[in-house]
């Protein structure tokens, strides 16, 4: 650096006017974009030289490699830690994991089942991840997916229109209902400071009760089977895409939405605002980003994704709304988001892993003769391993301060850095 700190040419920073007060200054209005902004900004940009963009590709490769390594290590650690418990349950790990493999990857049907379970987990994981990026903990995906499922079911049953339009409208209705369900926590958080963990959990119970109320015998959506509605019209169904399995178009929609989320988070000013509010809401405010607005936007977007989770399940897998159709996808989504390090690609990988566990659980029970609840144990261990990793890297960062690559205090900011 120049130690006088005086950048060369600071005297004529405004070449056009020199250092004279500008004649027009007297009447100069506070125009919202003023003249010297562009000039100064350009000067700074010009100081950059040319070798800026080059490092990006290697950075990306390194980042991806590192993230993949962490992901695999976390999953393996959880599987190893689960081994003693499997033995305690009266089986042995090799048989058990063999059974998991048979039920989830060995052949067309198991693999399709894995993808079927992966679909809602991917939507839900994205919902949780988006909220996390903005520093919000949305535990309400389970409720939002119920709300989304109801709305998608109603539109699917009662509208009649051209198939692609019908599907699209049903999905949008689901997203809107999920967003609506997240609106209450969002508003309470933004304007009253009520913590979203409390309100999203409470909204879950409201959703469960509303669902029961609607489909119970005599309820507004009563169908020919108990605890379920009429089937949706065939025009509203997400088509099956891999005969003879029940894999449906939802997985494709989910992957497209994941790509869109990636783009939004890392490549748009809106995503930048989300991440900034998540990283430091006060700094965001001082730089003209309304954190309240971001809180509402992020929560609504997260809720919409939560609503889509339910809509896709209803339109693709069940073809009707069923009360308690979700075996806890909304809660598993939290584990998915954490294992995926909040990055859409990671979330996709994590949802595949959790989908695999879920699809393999039946075979686990049949072949290894241990309860399928063992997969809940494994999920829990995955979350524990993620937490342990964050703790470890935080400690490492504290010991070797100044080495970069440090770990943040907040899960959200910590996990949300890469792209």
């Amino acid at each position, binding site marked *: 650096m120049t130690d006088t700190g005086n950048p060369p040419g600071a005297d004529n920073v405004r070449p056009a006017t020199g250092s004279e007060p500008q004649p027009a200054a007297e009447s100069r209005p506070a125009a919202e974009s003023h003249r010297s902004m*562009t000039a100064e900004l350009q000067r700074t940009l010009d100081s950059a030289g040319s070798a800026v963009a080059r490092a990006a590709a290697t950075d990306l490769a390194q980042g991806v490699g590192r993230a993949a390594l962490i992901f695999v290590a976390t999953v393996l650690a959880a599987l190893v830690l689960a081994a003693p418990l499997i033995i305690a349950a009266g089986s042995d790990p090799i048989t058990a994991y063999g059974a998991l493999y048979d039920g989830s990857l060995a052949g067309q049907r198991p693999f399709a089942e894995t993808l079927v379970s992966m679909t809602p987990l991917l939507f839900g994981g994205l919902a949780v991840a988006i909220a996390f990026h903005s520093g919000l903990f949305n535990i309400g995906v389970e409720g939002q997916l119920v709300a989304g499922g109801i709305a998608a079911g109603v539109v699917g049953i009662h509208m009649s229109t051209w198939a692609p339009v019908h599907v699209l409208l049903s999905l949008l209705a689901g997203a809107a209902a999920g967003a609506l369900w997240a609106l209450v926590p969002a508003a309470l958080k933004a304007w009253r400071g009520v913590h979203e963990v409390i309100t999203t959990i409470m909204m879950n119970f409201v959703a469960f009760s509303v669902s029961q109320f609607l489909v119970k015998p005599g309820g507004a959506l009563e169908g020919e089977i108990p605890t379920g509605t009429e089937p949706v019209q065939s025009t509203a169904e997400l088509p099956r895409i891999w005969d003879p399995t029940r894999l449906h178009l939802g997985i494709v929609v989910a992957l497209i939405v994941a790509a869109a989320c990636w783009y939004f988070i890392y490549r748009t000013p809106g995503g930048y605002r989300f991440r900034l509010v998540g990283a430091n809401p006060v*700094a965001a405010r001082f730089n003209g980003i309304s954190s309240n607005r971001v809180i509402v936007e992020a929560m609504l977007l997260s809720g919409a994704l939560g609503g889509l989770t339910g809509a896709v399940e209803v339109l693709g897998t069940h073809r009707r709304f069923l009360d308690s159709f979700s075996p806890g996808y909304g809660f598993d989504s939290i584990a998915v988001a954490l294992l995926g390090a909040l990055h859409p690609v990671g979330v996709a990988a994590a949802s595949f892993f959790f989908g695999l566990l879920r699809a393999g659980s039946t075979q686990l029970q049949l072949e290894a003769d241990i309860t399928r609840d063992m997969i809940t144990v494994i999920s829990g261990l995955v979350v524990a391993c993620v937490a342990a990793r964050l703790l470890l890297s935080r400690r490492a960062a504290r010991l070797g301060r100044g080495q970069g690559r440090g770990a943040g205090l907040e899960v959200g900011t910590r996990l949300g*850095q890469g792209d």
Partner: protein
Amino acid sequence: MRGITKRYPGVVANDAVDFTVESASIHGLLGENGAGKSTLMKVLFGLTAPSAGTVEIAGRPVVVDSARDALDLGIGMVQQHFSLIGDFTVAENLVLGSEPLQRGGLLDLDRAAADIAALSDRYGFRIDPRSRVGDLAVGARQRVEILKALYRGAEVLILDEPTAALAPTEVAELVGLLRRLRAQGRTVVFISHKLSEVIDLCDRVTVLRGGRVEGHREIGPAERDDPERHDALAAELARMMVGHELPDPPERVDGPERGGVPVLRLSAAGDGRRLGPIDLEVQAGEIVGVAGVEGNGQTELVEMVVGVRRCRAGSVHLGGTDVTRWSVRRRLNTGVAHIAEDRHGAAVADGLDLAHNATLGFQGRPPFSRRGLWLSLVQMRRLARGVVNRFGVQAVAVTDPLRSLSGGNQQKLVVGRELSRGPELFVAAQPTRGLDVAAAAFVHSELAALRRRGAGVLLVSLELTEILALADRIVVMSGGRIAGETSPSEVDVTTLGRWMTGGGAVGEPEAAAAGAAGAAT
């Protein structure tokens, strides 16, 4: 400490450092940001293990593996960032980790409080063990930290830049306290980069530069009392720290450039609580310094100008336009730039990388964003690299997280980012807090350059010397109002002091603020 070497990957933070402190003395440790002061003290306090070298206490080599080891050896450390729990009382904070128990295993807080009160009285701490830490002013919290170290039996106290966050009156109180500690046989290591404080307080000083010992100096009463020798020593130490002569303070350019155009005008502005009513004008081409004891409304004033705090009475004008109801974003777009007084709190996100931090405030405009749909990482990195190059930030890659930079370099990044807005009004709140001499000189020359090109600068600082060196006009805040205005040429320190302490509210910001709230309602 002999031959202490500490290597981090790519950096040697300490290179064969010998450091000896005599008991019952105050030993200054001087050096710029990144000179290795903190690393050396972390080795001594057991927070990090040296790559080579030994630590000896009273001639015997010891191994300090943890902070607990250090405490057992009688070494206590007060970090820059306090580790107190705001909701606990002083006594509860102090016993944390070594709780005194009654028979039956119950916590004996009464005994602890009595012990602490006795300790506090012995050295004149003026701390009530039963007050809640969250209610105390910064200076008092720091005394609690020192008290905590003493309560744990520290004979040697390491203070890491203890005056960085203190108001002048609080500094004076700390100096008195440390002298009393020395008189009672305790030893103090005083880390700082403020030369005059070190000269006034320390018996001996060691200067570090680039991880090596640059030299030792004894400081006698002659240097303290004779202004000429004081200045000569300060210049010598500054040379040792920086490695060359310090730049002169930026030249004052008065007169022609000072147009009569107000870039900022507050008319009877107030937030209805702690601030106001305030009448204040900043003209194009002038620096207005805001002095005062911390907590007298300066923070609120800055927040109101930037637009984070709502102006509930009066009005705020920027360049002739009424912006009282404008959002922060609109105000920034009219050419307001802002250095936040709390860098970590309000200016940066230290988990995000340099590129994201450099773009903060620019995120919605070209070339970083196209129609709000696309964010250009390449342009963001280009901006960060530009700030790094143009303003001499020491950084490796713009994709590193911000926290990998030292505090001074983070501040340079913030200053560079804000200058890149090409501001008409530059609001600088404590712009040199925690910066070393060279970095502070950099900030000062940038502020002077802004004035030269006709921008208005509102400089809020707790350091009078900074304001006296830079400002064209000085206003003093007390109790959320402006207590008086003067200019550096006719400044009278007694008057300033009276204005600053107006109504005997010295060091009692709560009382002052309460007074202001009462006055405003």
